[in-house]
C-alpha cells in the first residue's frame, strides 16, 4: 500500500512537471498581455515599462525557470490583472465551483442511477429503449441555450428564482458555502440544474449500460437459478458490479466539471473558477492560466488516486501494485 502511494506520488510529480512545461510554452507564446494591460493612451515608455515589469522581455525559458523556482516554493505566480497571487485567486473561487459541481453530481447520481438501473434491468423492452433514446436529449442540448431557457422560464416568466449570481454564504470551516442559506439555495437552484441535466443523462446511460450487461451475465442467471430474490439480485449482484465503472466515471466527471464548468458559470454569473479561467484567457493573464492548469492537473491526479482506491475496495480482483517480476 505504501509502495503504491509512493509510486503514484512520483508519477504525479512527473505529470505535473510535464504539464507545466507544456502549458507554459503554449500560453507564453500567444499575444502580448502588456498590450491589454496598459491604458490605451499609454506612451511607448509606459508600454515598455509594463513589459519589463511583467518580465515579458526575458526569453521564455528564463521566465519558465523563474516560474519553476517559485513554484517549488508554493508560489505559482502573481496575476497580471488582479495583482494577487494566482493560486490564492483561484482557490478563493474554488468553493463556489465546488458547491455547484458537488450538488449537480449528487443530484445526477440520485436521479440518474435509479432510472438507469430500471432501464438496464428491463433491457430489451420498448419503454427501456425509449428512455435511453430520450436520455440523449439530456446531453445534446447546448448548455448555454439550456441555461438561458431555464432563466427565461423560472426567473423572467415565473419569477420564482433569481436570474444569476451566488446568494448569501455562510462560512463552514472557513469555507464560504451558499447552500446553507435560503437565499443561497434559491440562487443555486438553476445553475445546479443546468449542470445536472447532462450528467443525469450520463448517469442514466452509464448505469443502464452497466446494468444491462450485468443482467445478462451468467452470475446473475445463476443467482436467479438459486432462487435469490430480485431485490437482492439488484442490490448485491448487479449494483456491486456496475458501481465500479460508475465510480470511475463520476471521479473523472467531477474533476472535469471542477475545471471546466465555464458555460454554466458564465450564463449564471456564478463566481467560480471556470469564469476566472475564461476571463484570464481573454486578458492574457498568463500566470493565472498556468496556475489554473497546474491546479486542475493536480485535482485530476488526486481524483484518480481516490478512484483507484475505491476501485480496489470494490473489486477484489484488483491489485493496486503490479507484482514485480
Amino acid at each position, binding site marked *: 500500500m505504501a509502495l503504491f502511494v509512493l509510486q503514484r506520488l512520483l508519477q504525479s510529480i512527473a505529470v505535473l512537471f510535464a504539464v507545466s512545461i507544456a502549458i507554459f510554452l503554449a500560453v507564453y507564446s500567444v499575444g502580448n498581455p502588456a498590450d491589454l494591460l496598459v491604458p490605451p493612451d499609454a506612451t511607448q515608455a509606459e508600454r515598455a515599462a509594463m513589459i519589463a515589469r511583467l518580465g515579458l522581455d526575458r526569453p521564455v525559458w528564463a521566465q519558465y525557470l523563474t516560474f519553476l523556482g517559485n513554484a517549488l516554493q508554493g508560489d505559482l505566480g502573481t496575476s497580471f490583472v488582479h495583482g494577487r497571487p494566482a493560486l490564492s485567486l483561484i482557490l478563493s473561487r474554488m468553493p463556489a465551483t465546488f458547491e455547484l459541481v458537488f450538488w449537480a453530481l449528487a443530484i445526477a447520481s440520485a436521479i440518474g442511477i435509479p432510472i438507469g438501473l430500471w432501464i438496464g434491468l428491463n433491457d*430489451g*423492452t420498448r419503454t427501456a429503449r425509449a428512455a435511453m433514446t430520450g436520455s440523449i436529449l439530456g446531453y445534446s442540448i447546448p448548455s448555454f441555450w439550456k441555461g438561458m431557457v431555464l432563466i427565461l422560464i423560472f426567473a423572467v416568466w415565473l419569477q420564482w428564482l433569481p436570474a444569476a449570481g451566488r446568494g448569501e454564504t455562510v462560512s463552514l470551516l472557513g469555507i464560504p458555502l451558499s447552500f446553507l442559506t435560503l437565499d443561497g439555495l434559491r440562487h443555486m437552484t438553476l445553475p445546479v440544474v443546468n449542470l445536472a441535466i447532462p450528467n443525469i443523462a450520463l448517469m442514466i446511460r452509464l448505469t443502464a449500460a452497466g446494468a444491462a450487461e450485468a443482467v445478462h*451475465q*451468467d*452470475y*446473475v*442467471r*445463476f*443467482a*436467479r*437459478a*438459486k*432462487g*435469490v*430474490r430480485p431485490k*437482492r439480485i439488484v442490490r*448485491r*449482484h448487479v449494483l*456491486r*458490479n456496475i458501481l465500479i465503472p460508475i465510480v470511475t466515471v463520476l471521479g473523472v466527471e467531477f474533476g472535469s466539471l471542477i475545471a471546466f464548468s465555464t458555460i454554466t458559470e458564465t450564463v449564471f454569473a456564478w463566481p467560480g473558477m471556470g469564469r476566472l479561467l475564461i476571463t484570464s484567457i481573454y486578458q492574457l493573464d498568463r500566470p493565472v492560466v498556468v496556475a489554473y492548469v497546474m491546479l486542475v492537473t493536480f485535482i485530476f491526479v488526486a481524483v484518480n488516486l481516490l478512484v483507484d482506491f475505491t476501485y480496489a475496495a*470494490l*473489486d*477484489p*480482483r484488483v491489485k493496486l501494485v503490479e507484482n514485480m517480476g
Partner: protein
Amino acid sequence: MTDNSPVLDMRGLRTVFHDAAGAWPAVDGIDLTVHRGEVLGLVGESGSGKSVAGFSILGLIDPPGEITDGQVTFRGQDLRRLDEEGLRRLRGAELAMIFQDPLTTLNPVLTIGEQMVEAITEHADVAPAEARRRAAESLEKVGITSPRARLDQYPHEFSGGMRQRVAIATALLNNPALIIADEPTTALDVTIQGQIIAEMQRLQAESGAALIWISHDLGVVAELADRIAVMYAGRIVETGSTDEVLDRPRHPYTKGLLESVPGDAPPGQGLRQVPGAAPPLSARPVGCPFHPRCDRATEICRREEPARDADPSGRSWLCHHPLDDGAAA
C-alpha cells in the same frame, strides 16, 4: 413403498425466440421424463436447443425468448402455471441448476461464502452462522479442503475445477429433488472432468436426486446416464435406456454421433464426423430437419416431418427410415 411417478414429466415443450422476422422455435415440442434417482443424459450438438430446454424447465427464459407451449410437471405441479415468485421458491431449493462455465457463474466481487449462504437464506429463515456451517459442510462433501476458510475467499482465488465444485456444492445445499447440469465439465480440463463426473455420480447416488445431464459429449453421458435423449434441431429424435441407445441406435443421427466418438476408431484412420452442420434457428429445413445430412434420406424425408414412433419399453424415435433392430452400429 416406492413412488414411481416421475419427478419431472415434460410434454410438448416449445420455446421460441423472437426477432424482427418472426418467432423461431429453439425447442420445438419435446417430451422428457425423469424419475427419482435417475440420471437422464440429454445429448446434442451446439444449436440443438438442449441448453434452452434446461433453462426452460426452470423458467429462466428472458425476452426475446418465450416458452409458448407445453406442460412441465414437476412433482405434480405444472411449473408453467406458476408465477415468478412461485418459481423462485422452487429454484435453488427443490430444483437446482449447474451452469456450464465455472469462470463466469460466480459473482467476482462477492465471497464464495456469501454466494452460498444466500442460496440457503433466500429460501428459509436460517441464521447466518448455521447457513455458513451448512455451506462449509457442502464444500467438504465436494472435496474442498479447509472449507471454513475458503468461504471467505473470492472466486478468482479458486481454479476452474474448484469453482465448478463450489457450484455443485451450492446446488446440493437445499437437497433438491432435481438437478439440471448444463454441460458442467465442458469447460474443464479432461483430467478434472473425470473427477467431477465421479463426484457427481457419488453425490447423486447419495442424495437420491434426479439428474439431467446435458452434454454434447456422448462419451461422458455414456458413463453416467441411465437413460439418454438425443436432441437435434429442437426435437428429441431418439430416447431410450443408455445401453439400448448406444448398442442399437434407431436414428441415423444417433448412429453418426456414436461413430464420431474418438477412441472407437482404429488408430491412423481419420475421425468420422456427421457431415454438414446443424441448421441455424432461422433456417430449419422443411420435413425432417436432419435430412440434409442423412445418407438415408428420401423424398418423404424432404417433405414430411416424421411422426414419433415408440415401443413399450420406453424407446422412441423420430425417423421415416429408422435403423432396424439388430442392425449393428
